[in-house]
């Protein structure tokens, strides 16, 4: 059970932190202001409260260590209520009125698309720290979340080798689900497998009787579940009670909404997820991160991949500003273009790709056991976000500010 | 005299309940006519059929020389039929003036709307009440207001469903005068009424409806003396 803290407290905590940490000798330029737009209420709150906390943790650590280039970090936090309109209102506010240097914003892809035109209009800089369907080629955006090529090029071949070549995809019927399903289809075919079924579920559907039968009617060896939202998550319980019994593969569960903690075992048993971070990861860096996190937020229900991404993003930004010697966006992009902006954090070493401004990841294969504990049968290091760059997005040369998909790639140069 | 309304073989049943059982009825222009009958005789249903609120199963309604059987309510009103309901059908939250404006704004006798409204305020004795919300008028005043509104569409035929229900004797008498006034302006009047004194005051001829059919028709004296009519009223009273 989560217990949400009111944002006001978060806001004040951020401000207070800046004040307290401001006591040591900071440079004269004043604080670096960081806008944080995350959903602290509404549908997505369960997965996003922790992102705010991760940013607060990073801000505290940075300030304790003397700030960014001697300047303290100050957070400007707004609750976007899982409402796209609030993103539009508040993105305008942080860029125009609060005049922040950088923004950390957005959970759903819809929210990112809602605020992206505004970031472009004011030539702001925004970090999107979410795992998503990929394809954003925009100079004003830096994406630290994992993208399909990173999660599926690892997950699908491994699953096929382990369980067989017949794949059934069950995906939410919107951009993320459709594009991810496209990736799955492509990778299955490249590896000589067969798609025995593909089904798209409208958002908000909670009854899966027919779907479960459809799956049972095929010879599927495993099911790729790309389901999103609380309503669709009812699938696992219903499939488990109907004893479907097939292994499941996903890029979206566990690492984000910690379903293995929320659902009653064994409904998620035999689920395999590729994620770039979850709190169960057993490395010293991860354990240390979890410890520090819980020291500051003892009640945190779960530290998910987005929390790690947000924490990493703060540190990457610190590094780029310090190397550029300024918060000027062009200077920061020049640093990024050097191609060696990396950070060895809780999830291992990660680097920003200058062409797409996406991030490389260590990809962990997390397996949910019968008692919903997690084991890691496989780890892939340094998986690059290769697709955008290969498809023709090169932000060091031009800025189309567009989102591409495998079926509508960048126009040929 | 020409016939303004002619009804032929009008039939309507709801399931097993026959509310109009082949009614033949006609009304000459300029008449003042009353429709009486015991409860459930089909008087209100007959009005609804005339107004187009019920579609008849069979029969025709001819008004002012043309067949209106297939027309919708508002189209019949525009041809010149108007109605005042038993329960005052006024716009309670609107002022008396607005009530009259809505009724008159489409039809005026060549004078401005405000002049028309003034005239109707005089007619209904509601001078000084023009800004009062209609809902707080006395019951009698509401009835008069609705009569005035019903006149607003410049009807040739005015249907009145128990216009004096709930009125004091004084108000009833005044209503009778009002109706005579309207009739003298050339409006044919057909009223459903229970109060025989009032029927005597206004009607020249009376039709008795019973079980959805015309039972008798004649002058008021003929009807009062009609043995069958007494029987059905007494019979109804026994129920």
């Amino acid at each position, binding site marked *: *059970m*989560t*217990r*949400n803290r009111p944002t006001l407290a978060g806001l004040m905590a951020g401000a207070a932190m800046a004040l307290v940490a401001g006591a040591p000798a900071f440079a004269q330029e004043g604080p670096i202001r960081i806008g944080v737009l995350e959903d602290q*209420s509404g*549908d997505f*709150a*369960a997965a996003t*409260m922790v992102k705010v906390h991760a940013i607060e943790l990073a801000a505290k650590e940075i300030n304790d260590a003397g700030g960014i280039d001697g300047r303290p970090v100050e957070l400007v936090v707004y609750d976007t209520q899982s409402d796209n309109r609030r993103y539009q209102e508040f993105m305008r506010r942080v860029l125009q009125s609060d005049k922040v240097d950088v923004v950390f914003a957005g959970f759903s892809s819809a929210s990112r698309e809602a605020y992206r035109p505004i970031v472009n209009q004011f030539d702001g800089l925004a970090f999107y720290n979410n795992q998503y369907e990929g394809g954003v080629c925009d100079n004003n955006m830096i994406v630290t979340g994992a993208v399909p090529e990173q999660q599926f090029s690892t997950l699908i071949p491994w699953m096929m080798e382990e369980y067989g070549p017949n794949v059934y995809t069950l995906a939410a*019927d919107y951009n993320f689900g459709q594009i991810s399903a496209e990736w799955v289809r492509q990778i299955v075919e490249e590896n000589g497998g067969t798609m025995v079924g593909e*089904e*798209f*579920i*409208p958002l*908000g*559907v*909670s*009854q899966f*009787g*027919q*779907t479960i*039968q459809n799956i*049972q*009617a095929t010879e599927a060896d495993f099911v790729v579940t790309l389901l999103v939202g*609380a*309503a669709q*998550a*009812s699938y696992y*319980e*219903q499939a*488990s*009670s*109907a*004893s*479907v*019994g097939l292994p499941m593969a996903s890029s979206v569960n566990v690492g984000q909404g910690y379903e293995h903690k*929320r*659902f*009653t*075992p064994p*409904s998620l048993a035999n689920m395999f997820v590729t994620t770039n971070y979850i709190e169960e990861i057993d490395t010293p860096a991860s354990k240390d991160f979890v410890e520090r996190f819980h020291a500051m937020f003892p009640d945190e*229900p779960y530290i998910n991949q987005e929390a790690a991404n947000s924490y990493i993003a703060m540190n990457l930004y610190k590094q780029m500003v310090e190397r550029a010697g300024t918060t000027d966006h062009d200077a920061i992009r020049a640093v990024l273009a050097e191609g060696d902006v990396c950070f060895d954090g809780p999830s291992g070493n990660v680097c920003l790709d200058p062409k797409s401004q996406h991030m490389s990841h260590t990809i962990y294969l997390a397996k949910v056991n019968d008692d919903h504990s997690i084991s890691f049968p496989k780890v892939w290091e340094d998986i690059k976000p290769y697709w955008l760059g290969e498809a023709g997005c090169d932000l060091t040369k031009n800025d189309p500010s567009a989102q591409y998909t495998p079926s509508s790639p960048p126009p040929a140069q | 005299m020409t016939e303004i309304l002619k009804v032929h073989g009008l039939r309507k049943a*709801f*399931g*097993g309940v026959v509310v109009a059982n082949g009614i033949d009825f006609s009304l000459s222009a300029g008449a003042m006519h009353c429709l009486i009958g015991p409860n459930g005789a089909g008087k209100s249903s007959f009005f609804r059929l005339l107004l187009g609120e019920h579609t008849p199963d069979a029969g025709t309604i001819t008004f002012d020389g043309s067949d209106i059987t297939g027309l919708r309510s508002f189209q019949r009103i525009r041809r010149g039929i108007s109605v005042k309901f038993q329960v005052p059908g006024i716009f309670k939250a609107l002022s008396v003036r607005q009530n009259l404006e809505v009724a008159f704004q489409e039809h005026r006798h060549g004078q401005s709307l405000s002049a028309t409204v003034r005239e109707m305020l005089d007619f209904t004795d509601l001078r000084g009440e023009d800004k009062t919300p209609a809902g707080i008028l006395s019951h009698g005043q509401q009835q008069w207001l609705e009569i005035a509104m019903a006149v607003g569409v410049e009807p040739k035929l005015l249907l009145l469903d128990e216009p004096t229900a709930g009125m004091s004797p004084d108000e009833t008498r005044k209503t009778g005068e009002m109706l005579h006034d309207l009739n003298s302006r050339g409006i044919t009047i057909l009223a459903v009424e229970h109060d025989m004194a009032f029927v005597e005051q206004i009607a020249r001829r009376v039709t008795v409806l019973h079980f959805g059919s015309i039972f008798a028709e004649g002058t008021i004296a003929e009807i009062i003396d009609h043995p069958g009519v007494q029987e059905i009223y007494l019979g109804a009273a026994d129920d």
Partner: protein
Amino acid sequence: MALFQSVFAMLYQFGDTFAFLVISCAGLAVIFGMMGVINLAHGEFIMCGAYVTASAARGGLPLPLAILTGALVAGAVGMVVERLVIRHLYQRPLDSIIATWGISLIATQGVLIVLGSTMQGIGTPLGSIDVGGRSYSLYRLVLMACALGLLGGLYLLFYHSRFGVIARATIQKPQMAYALGVNTGRMYGLTFGLGAALAGLAGGLYAPTMTMVPTMGATFIVESFVTVVVGGADIFVGAAPAAAILALIKAGLTAWYGQLFGQIGLLVTVILVIRILPGGLSGWLKGTTR
């Protein structure tokens, strides 16, 4: 065998959808049919029932008792809401829509703040059975039985009990009932409470099969509204056949064209039914049988 398997599969899907529609609409139908109030907080009463059921079940109560507790608590909450809010709005049906929507906002967000964004589920009991090589959840067969039981129970309650007779009299002729010494205020309170309790029951019955979140009521609300509207004001004449027809449409469309068409098909059906049969199925059925 293959034939038997596919017939069973079809029946199971139909029954599953039918049960969902009947169980989720019963509370709404009682409140709308008996009182003419459109209760937009219906989903939140469902959520209330589900949360109480889950808490009680995890507190050690056997599931059937936990579900009953959920229904009773939702019913009690419903009676309080009726007393404080709904009672003042019987003359203003449009305003009661607004008020119940306000209640729904407060309930959803209040639960989010107090209990957090998710609650741990309780797991589906009873396991599965194997029919012709495919496995089916047994609990969902129980749900189908519950739906039939619910219809029967409501029929008995409203047509063969003192409460039912008085309730129907009160709703049809409130002044008359009042004159005959019926405490009409209490009847309205009880009827609304019954509707809320039925919503709570729906929440309790489906709690083991769903993700528990404050907004979970929303997944019921469209289906229940559609069923009630298609059924018309008289729930006994209308709701059961409406649920059957809608289940057929939804299960059919879902099976052949996928979930999207199942969803859209329901909404289009409701628009068409309102257009063709303004009184709903019950109005139409009554009109032809008289």
